[in-house]
């Protein structure tokens, strides 16, 4: 029982990342009908927003501290971040420590800008081109974006730690009456899951309970009619694209402590997220979220030792295998609408 619970928990953080990226992909596909291969790059840009913020916060000046000596007996040079000067030592340290959560506030406007520029500058011209062309041009864009990041940040992963309050693990099982030390779970993964749940909830609430969201949903169902009613649906869809980019970017920001960001992390996630979207059903938002968590948990179950002993290598292929089976038996995915991209 505890082993099963542990695997479910392990699957949650990866599942959250899949679900968030797939949610953004589906938003874009559902609204604009565009297959966005550059979505992984947006995830990656989000992660590098966190890197940028933590770098900006640690910008420092060098002072010579006469009270301390280095091993040669010279006065020690000490790097003092500017935040120390502005907010004092203690507050400054806390700010630097919390760089990753703070980058959320930086990432949201940046990602919305990136998304809107992308849509207005490039994707707009591809609405009426075939899906293959959309895939190709966004694939090219993904290459360009990741090369730009590589040029400025280098090719190596950049470790970005979580706030010290959330580093380390805790005995999750003991809280629920299991044997102590059977279910140890890192704090940050739980934070990531909670964060993903909040974001997903916020997106759904936004679509469900605001007028803007209602118009967008109407546009997803029948774009032409909404346009005929005198609503500028293009503008709203552009904003939705920015929102989808922000969701992917936030997923990236919060993922940095789990996996040090490097320039090709987006591509690695993209392939899997597409599989997730297809399993969930093209254009279905709940399907994307459900499939994301489902596949994340399935993946972690498949990497259990007992399972690998029975079917070796299953942990490597389980997601693809599930995708193939779903695509062949239930063409519109788990929760896809009838008739949407069923060909």
């Amino acid at each position: 029982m505890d082993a099963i619970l542990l695997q479910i928990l392990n699957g949650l953080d990866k599942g959250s990342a899949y679900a968030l990226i797939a949610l953004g992909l589906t938003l874009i596909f559902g609204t604009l009908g565009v297959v966005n291969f550059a979505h992984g790059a947006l995830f990656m840009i989000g992660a590098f927003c966190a890197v940028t913020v933590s770098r900006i916060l640690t910008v420092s000046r060098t002072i010579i501290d006469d009270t301390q000596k280095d091993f040669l007996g010279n006065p020690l040079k000490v790097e003092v971040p500017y935040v120390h000067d502005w907010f004092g030592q203690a507050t400054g340290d806390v700010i630097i420590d919390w760089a990753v959560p703070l980058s959320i506030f930086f990432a949201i406007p940046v990602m919305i800008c990136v998304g809107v520029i992308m849509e207005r500058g490039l994707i707009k011209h591809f609405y009426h081109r075939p899906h293959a062309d959309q895939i190709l041009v966004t694939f090219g864009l993904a290459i360009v974006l990741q090369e730009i990041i590589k040029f400025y940040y280098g090719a190596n992963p950049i470790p970005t730690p979580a706030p010290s309050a959330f580093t380390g693990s805790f005995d999750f099982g003991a809280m629920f009456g299991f044997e102590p030390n059977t279910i140890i779970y890192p704090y940050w993964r739980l934070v990531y899951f909670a964060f993903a749940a909040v974001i997903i909830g916020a997106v759904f609430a936004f679509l469900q309970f605001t007028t803007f969201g209602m118009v967008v949903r109407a546009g997803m169902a029948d774009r032409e009619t909404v346009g005929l009613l005198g609503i500028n649906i293009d503008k709203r869809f552009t904003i939705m694209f920015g929102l989808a980019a922000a969701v992917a970017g936030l997923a990236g920001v919060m993922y940095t402590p789990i996996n040090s960001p490097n320039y090709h992390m987006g591509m690695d996630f993209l392939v899997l997220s597409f599989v997730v979207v297809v399993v969930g059903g093209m254009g279905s938002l709940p399907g994307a979220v459900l499939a994301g968590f489902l596949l994340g948990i399935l993946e972690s179950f498949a990497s259990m030792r007992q399972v690998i002993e029975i079917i070796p290598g299953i942990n490597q292929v389980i997601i693809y295998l599930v995708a193939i089976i779903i695509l062949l038996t239930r063409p519109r995915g788990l929760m896809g609408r009838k008739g949407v991209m069923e060909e």
Partner: protein
Amino acid sequence: MLGLQKKDASLLLLVFALTMLAPFILNPFPEGSGWAQFNAGYPDLMQRFVIFGIFAIGFNILFGLTGYLSFGHAAFLGVGSYSAVWMFKLLSMNVIPAIALAVITSGLFALLIGFISLRRSGIYFSILTLAFAQMSFALAYSVLTPITGGETGLQLALDDPRILDSVSAAAGGNIPVPSLFGIEMRDSSEWSVGSWVFTFNNGYYFAAFIMLCSFYLSIRIFRSPFGLMLRAVKSNQQRLNYTGLNTRPYTLAAFVISGMYAGLAGGLMAAMDPLAGAERMFWTASGEVVLMTILGGVGTLIGPVLGAGMIKYMENILSKINSDILHTWFAFLPDGLEDFIVTIIYPFIGKGWHLTLGLLFMMVVIFLPGGLVEGGQKIAKLFKRGKKDDDGAKAADATTPAE
């Protein structure tokens, strides 16, 4: 000639001449000069030109004719490589059986994957092929290590059986090299004229010969009723279905043929350098052949070969340029301007060549859906029309006074 129309025959002849004279054409700059780094006439790169040319020609038969965008074609390349290396290990160092097995196994593999993937079309087909290729990659890396060599890749060893080769060949203590009835693939002869050095590599000419054969075959496929059928699938599959035709056998045949082309390329790769690794099956490798085909011109005969050549040239030549070389180029400019220009160009060359490739690719997809070939045709048309317009203008000039 050879059952081709006149236009195709001259295209084939042109490609024939270009590949045969490649050691000269690709080596236009004398050794030791500043431009020598742009020489691409060394065996390793020339082999890659033709091998990836074959790969792209095959991909074009599927994507260019039927419009099915496969994102998992590298899997067949990898399977071809593995089977060729196994043939080297077990049977003989002769390249013919190795390549034959590579083509056959990749064909069978393509039959299996195609049979399943072709039940869907559009984006789903792309995802399915991608999923299959990623599965093959993951399996080759982990569970199939006894067959594929896992992370180290599949390599030849001294104590491989090689039942057809004589024992004395291996007795020398060296691992034998792939050969064609005794002609070693890696051997080259050199011919120096003045300060030019031209290298004629056996492996290159072997691969080039196979490339010409597969190019010829692809022309025949393009012009055959079968090719017309595939084009019909691309333009309107529904209509074909309404007329009572089952398109599946046609698309499956195209998929298998293009998989066999990929296997052939993989086998040739192993023949040039007898090792195979799983990274050849990674999905970025599949993405590369997509880039090649689109860049050159999808659905055209010569386009994929051009695209393959261009990408491989950029990968090997453009990536070698570093900032020092740039500084020597622009040394004639005033210092400030020189630094400025070098800073601007630097991100696009050297390690950043992928950026250039990505931008170029996007430009092609946006403005030139027909690729470089369409670009060439447009330029040619521009010149022709320019002439015509001149004539028209003269005629107009001539008539106006009479009014």
